[in-house]
């Protein structure tokens, strides 16, 4: 029996109070995600239950019960409080998938500060932009990443503390740096939990848009209501499950469903802190007897490439439910996973801004491979006409995916960016920025982005951010960045550049530019191809016509260029 039972019945009788009641929350009460994911689970009698089974590429293992999670998050919270961090302060978590990342996240929330997780592969410029925008007060990081922090420290005067969780004493600490060892710190049995309320800010995730700098998506503690219930109904987590979410908590999936969802349900989850390897992944599933697996299309396609024979070398019979997120999951991958694992990966659709799953294929419902499924109960979803912003009623017609605002985990703001936030709403609908159609049975079918943002391996990359960084390279005069189709990652970054006089187009310069962007922004943002051009297509007013370059890459009809020249 699945947790959701009958989808139709759930939709008919839905109310968010279902989740509130299960979490014993009443309007006006204190609601603190850090407490809900640790202390409350202990109070429910699960203190000795494993919460986190962690291992890294070198085979090192750590194991935490829920009582360990309670204590360690108390300890981190107390340490931060001792540094003067508290209510509303932004604390950046800039680490690999080590236990301190997961526990630090809850520790930050317990003291009423705002957790700002950032993907540890971000380069110094990407980091600086996001810390500056957030006015971050402290960053928790590792030795291997601290060089990037040091490099831009002068430009972030508001950053009061750089906390190193693995300081080994071999070199002296530098300006603003402080060491903290979870293993050596005195455990804090009792911590006064900050009395956050439903609308108190909790998490600040940065996401990319077409224009302008990355946007800080502000979430609140009440988001728990949606994250808890969607984890229960979509991921179908049950008390004896061993859950594996492969996402990095630097991104929203890794926090909503890699920390908050499973731990608010008191489920055991495991984490593998290692790069991708099909063999290592299968070994991990076999070893921990993973039952529920939440991953991403890029990883699934990479597993497909690794072949069916490899699957047969491992005992993966523990798996009972698989789900996917990040980009549309192609029908072939759904069918393949059903054949090799005995269960299909079920696609889920949501965004950093939505905070929780919005459209999905539910366990037990008829799956249409390639479809994103139907709306989560309580979510009013539609597609809007691109000109009138009115809901499209005829099946199969493509429009903008939109949601009626008001679900618990909806973003509450873009940090410091009210105008962009307001622009996300039209005619009383939240605009996702994606396009799809809805078939006669109510299933959503993704067709593409409504803007120039590049979705590579499920992560959004802003062409503007890459173009700006390219212009800082000594050889680049002009740049335009678009998505290029890719078999595994769906899209990758491609750059068109014109060179300054004195620089020769060639393979060595291309590699130099690629590495420049990789280090400055991130490996995701690194152009996987650079095309040298004599000039870039521009509108009459001089703006670069990305859409024209995009159409060429995708083999699409370019149409009347004179129109493009006018309207950009």
């Amino acid at each position: 029996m699945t947790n959701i039972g009958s989808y139709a019945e759930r939709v008919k009788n839905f109310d968010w109070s279902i989740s509130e009641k299960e979490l014993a929350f009443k309007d006006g009460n204190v609601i603190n995600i850090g407490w809900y994911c640790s202390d409350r689970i202990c109070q429910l009698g699960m203190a000795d239950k494993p919460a986190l089974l962690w291992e890294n590429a070198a085979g090192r293992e750590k194991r935490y019960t829920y009582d360990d999670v309670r204590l360690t998050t108390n300890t981190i919270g107390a340490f931060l409080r001792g540094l003067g961090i508290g209510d509303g302060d932004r604390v950046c978590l800039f680490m690999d998938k080590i236990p301190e990342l997961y526990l630090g996240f809850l520790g930050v929330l317990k003291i009423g500060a705002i957790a700002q997780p950032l993907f540890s592969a971000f380069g110094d410029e990407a980091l600086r932009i996001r810390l500056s925008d957030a006015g971050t007060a402290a960053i928790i990081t590792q030795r291997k990443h601290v060089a990037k922090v040091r490099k831009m420290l002068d430009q972030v005067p508001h950053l009061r503390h750089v906390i190193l969780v693995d300081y080994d004493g071999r070199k002296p600490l530098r300006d603003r740096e402080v060491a903290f060892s979870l293993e050596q710190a005195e455990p804090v049995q009792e911590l006064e939990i900050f009395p956050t309320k439903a609308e108190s800010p909790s998490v600040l995730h940065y996401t990319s848009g077409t224009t302008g700098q990355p946007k800080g998506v502000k979430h609140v503690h009440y988001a728990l209501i949606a994250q808890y219930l969607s984890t229960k109904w979509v991921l179908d987590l049950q008390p004896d499950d061993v859950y594996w979410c492969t996402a990095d908590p630097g991104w929203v999936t890794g926090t909503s469903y890699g920390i908050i969802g499973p731990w608010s349900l008191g489920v055991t989850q495991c984490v593998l802190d290692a790069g991708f390897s099909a063999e290592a992944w299968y070994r991990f599933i076999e070893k921990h007897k993973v039952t529920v697996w939440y991953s991403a299309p890029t990883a699934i396609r990479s597993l497909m490439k690794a072949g069916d024979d490899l699957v047969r070398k491992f005992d993966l019979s523990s798996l009972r439910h698989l789900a996917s997120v990040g980009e549309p999951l192609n029908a072939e991958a759904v069918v393949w996973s059903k054949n090799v694992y005995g269960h299909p990966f079920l696609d889920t659709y949501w965004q950093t801004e939505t905070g929780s799953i919005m459209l999905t294929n539910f366990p037990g419902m008829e799956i249409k491979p390639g479809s994103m499924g139907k709306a989560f109960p309580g979510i009013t979803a539609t597609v809007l006409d691109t000109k009138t912003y009115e809901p499209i009623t005829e099946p199969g017609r493509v429009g903008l995916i939109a949601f009626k605002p008001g679900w618990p985990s909806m973003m509450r703001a873009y940090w410091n960016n009210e105008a962009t936030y307001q622009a996300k709403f039209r005619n009383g609908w939240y605009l996702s920025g994606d396009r799809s159609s809805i078939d006669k049975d109510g299933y959503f079918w993704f067709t593409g982005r409504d803007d120039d943002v590049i979705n590579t391996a499920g992560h959004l990359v802003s062409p503007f951010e890459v173009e700006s960084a390219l212009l800082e390279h000594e050889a680049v005069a002009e740049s335009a960045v678009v998505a290029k189709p890719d078999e595994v990652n769906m899209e990758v970054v491609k750059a068109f550049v014109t060179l300054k006089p004195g620089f020769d187009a060639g393979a060595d310069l291309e590699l130099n530019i690629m590495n420049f962007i990789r280090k400055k922004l991130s490996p995701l943002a690194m152009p996987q191809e650079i095309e040298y051009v004599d000039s870039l297509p521009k509108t009459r007013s001089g703006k670069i016509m990305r859409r024209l370059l995009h159409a060429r890459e995708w083999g699409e009809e370019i149409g009347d260029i004179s129109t493009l020249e006018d309207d950009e």
Partner: protein
Amino acid sequence: MEDAKDVVLNYIIEEYLEEEDDEITYDTPLISGGIVDSFSMVSLKRFLENKYQISIPDDKATPEAFDTVNSIVALVKSFLG
């Protein structure tokens, strides 16, 4: 190809490691160890192609083939004949 091992090792140290990273050897897992991610593998492949004037097809540029300096050099060697 001893020299190639050092060329590749030094390039990885120079390009992908942070100053506080642990030392790596010819056998350190690079991809599965999280030192070089799948996106950065593209720039590493490009380096090898430029350096050794070879073309590595995408189906040969697998995470397994790029996982250690030794396996990378073996791959390069197979294209040098």
